[in-house]
């Protein structure tokens, strides 16, 4: 009879083992953002140390890995809703995407798997090397994704109006000149192309959670990774986008649960948020829904947009 008791014990409590392990990991997890500062070499040095850690799903970058669970459906469904001509087996086929600050390629790869042609750029050569090596094992991805060690400014001249979509995830809080960054995005984006940004808000709460708790108290993020001064409130981002030829379509708050290691959408944008904007069409014409550039729309968990 003892083996039966053992059987029950093992199976009912082994499930909790994984949860307990995640609690343990929580105390040693590192949360990182990609660095996209072509100006601050000090920041680049910090990311250099972790350049080979990108693909450890349970390591320093685990929060970015799990962010894919909401940012990829968000991008995918937004683009599917805007297009009438797609194949569910290859939803992003024919779409040219620029992943700015791609790091090790964490976001480029899923987008590539969904059929898009992705160009990933990052100023840090080691990151690009890691990204290149990781994609090389998969023959399909190796063809669909191209990586380049470069800043956004450097590729503007040769890539005018080339891309259908630009993705700048966890990047704008590290950029020195945000308006210049947005202007460059506008130049490489085709008319009516989409820009997706995920970043951190500049509020008291984001200071407490993102700097004090994450960096100083729990050490989730190495100290000095984020500067609260550089955080971007959604209102300011929206203002900059609108005044540079973009029309903001969607803004939504994101929440990270360090215990479960997963992200979810939330109404409040006080810590993390995601934004989708569309570049105005040719001849300065904007799309019909331009008037409502206020964050009122939301994306449900399946990524279906509700207006």
């Amino acid at each position, binding site marked *: 009879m003892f083996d039966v008791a053992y059987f029950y014990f093992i199976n009912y409590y082994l499930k909790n083992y994984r949860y307990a392990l995640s609690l343990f990991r929580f105390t040693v997890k590192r949360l990182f953002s990609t660095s996209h500062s072509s100006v601050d070499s000090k920041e680049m040095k910090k990311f250099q140390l972790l350049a080979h850690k990108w693909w450890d*799903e349970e390591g320093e970058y685990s929060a970015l890995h799990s962010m*894919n669970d909401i940012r990829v459906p968000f991008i995918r469904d937004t683009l599917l809703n805007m297009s009438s001509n797609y194949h569910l087996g290859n939803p992003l086929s024919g779409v040219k995407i620029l992943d700015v600050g791609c790091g090790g390629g964490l976001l480029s790869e899923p987008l590539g798997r969904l059929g898009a042609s992705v160009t990933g750029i990052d100023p840090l050569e080691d990151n690009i090397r890691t990204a290149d090596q990781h994609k090389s094992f*998969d023959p399909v991805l190796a063809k669909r994704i191209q990586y380049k060690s470069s800043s956004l400014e450097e590729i503007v001249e040769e890539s005018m109006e080339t891309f259908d979509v630009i993705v700048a995830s966890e990047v704008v809080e590290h950029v020195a000149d945000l308006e210049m960054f947005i202007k460059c995005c506008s130049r490489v984006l085709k008319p009516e192309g989409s820009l997706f940004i995920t970043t951190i808000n500049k509020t008291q709460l984001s200071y407490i959670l993102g700097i004090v708790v994450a960096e100083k108290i729990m050490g989730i993020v190495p100290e000095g990774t984020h500067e609260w001064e550089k955080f971007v409130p959604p209102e300011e981002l929206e203002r900059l986008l609108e005044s540079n030829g973009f029309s903001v379509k969607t803004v939504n708050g994101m929440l990270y649960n360090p215990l479960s290691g997963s992200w979810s959408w939330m109404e409040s944008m006080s810590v993390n948020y995601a934004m989708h904007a569309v570049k105005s069409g040719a001849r300065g014409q904007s799309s019909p829904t331009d008037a409502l550039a206020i964050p009122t729309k939301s994306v449900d968990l399946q990524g279906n947009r509700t207006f």
Partner: protein
Amino acid sequence: VHLSNRTVVINMYLFILGHDIHFHDKKIALLEAGPRKECDHMPDSYSNRVSSISPGSATLLSSFGAWDHVCSLRLKPFRRMQVWDACSEAMIVFEKDDLDDMGYIVENDVIMSALTKQLDAVADRVEVFYRSRAVGYTWPLPSHSCDTSPWVQIELADGRRLQTKLLIGADGHNSVVRKEAEIKNIEHRYDQSAVVATLHLSEATDNNVAWQRFLPTGPIALLPLSDTASSLVWSTSHEHASELLGMDEESFVDSINSAFWSNINHSDFIDTAGAMFRSAISLLKPSGTAVRQLPPSVAKVDPGSRAMFPLGMGHATEYVRHRVALIGDAAHRVHPLAGQGVNLGFGDIACLAHHLSAAAFNGSDLGSLKHLLKFETERQRHNVSLIAAVDVLKRLYSTRLAPLVLLRTWGLQATNALPPVKVRISL
């Protein structure tokens, strides 16, 4: 030949993915140890290995077109299930209110044939390697170092090498994949073997009832195959099983009939206690007792159809690892007394296919632990309770001890009278 970029599956179950739209550009390979099995019409005699397919499993099979093939070959729906004790009068009857089919008895060969036909329909995406055997596996390190491939490498007996993002082990309760992945398996060998045979009834009847009687040595079940034939599954001790196999046909048939009909294990005490409880129930709930029907008597056994195989229980502590998943008997093994073995496997398939499809639609790496763990949690929650319940039932019914017999007699009678409990069980 170095083949790459494939999801490898061992055994003939997981090609539902071949039909999934989100897998449209993925390549799937199936390693099948046996030869290709397909027939357009079944031989006259029935195979002695049959499975009880629940309506849920039938829905799964029809979702990718295999059920139509099964229907065109051979199957027997049953509408009623009667389960009763050899030590008392207690019994429980399952049937749907609208007299719908409760389940289907299908020969395993028929299922295999239907699946083979459907595999052909997706041959551009699913490649089947018949008569192949994997002799070596190389597992990737979870956070791979830069030089080694992050995928699972498989070496076949004929020297070919495959590499894959996800290896699904569906190779039975002695799973090699599970052993090679060093996943611990909690197992327990029952002191029982199951004897199977194809039987012919004394007279043709509306054979749409599945019968099961719990003898102290183990349950004996009669599953309908046609109006004149039924399949036998008799779980009993190893010695008795060998005896049954060795007997001449007449004695074998006599043993079966007496197992179903004889009241030798009854005791007056239990009978009285049971009768009292039954009258109490009929006061409270007049419809709560049903008339006990008698199973059909057996006249003949198909020569050469007798076989036996040992029984056991098993459960893998983990269903998934990085780039590996276990389904079906490789993950869990259950006593046939509830007829749930293959249905659990089909449930695993439906769940894994759902999670993999969602992962593919998110552009995730298919071998990533994140969604595999979701599959594991969902299935373990369901499977563990069922396997534990079946194990408890098996032990409860393996004894002649009066207190336990009384307990199970009253328990069974009470359950029979309570529709909500019955409905939950019969799902």
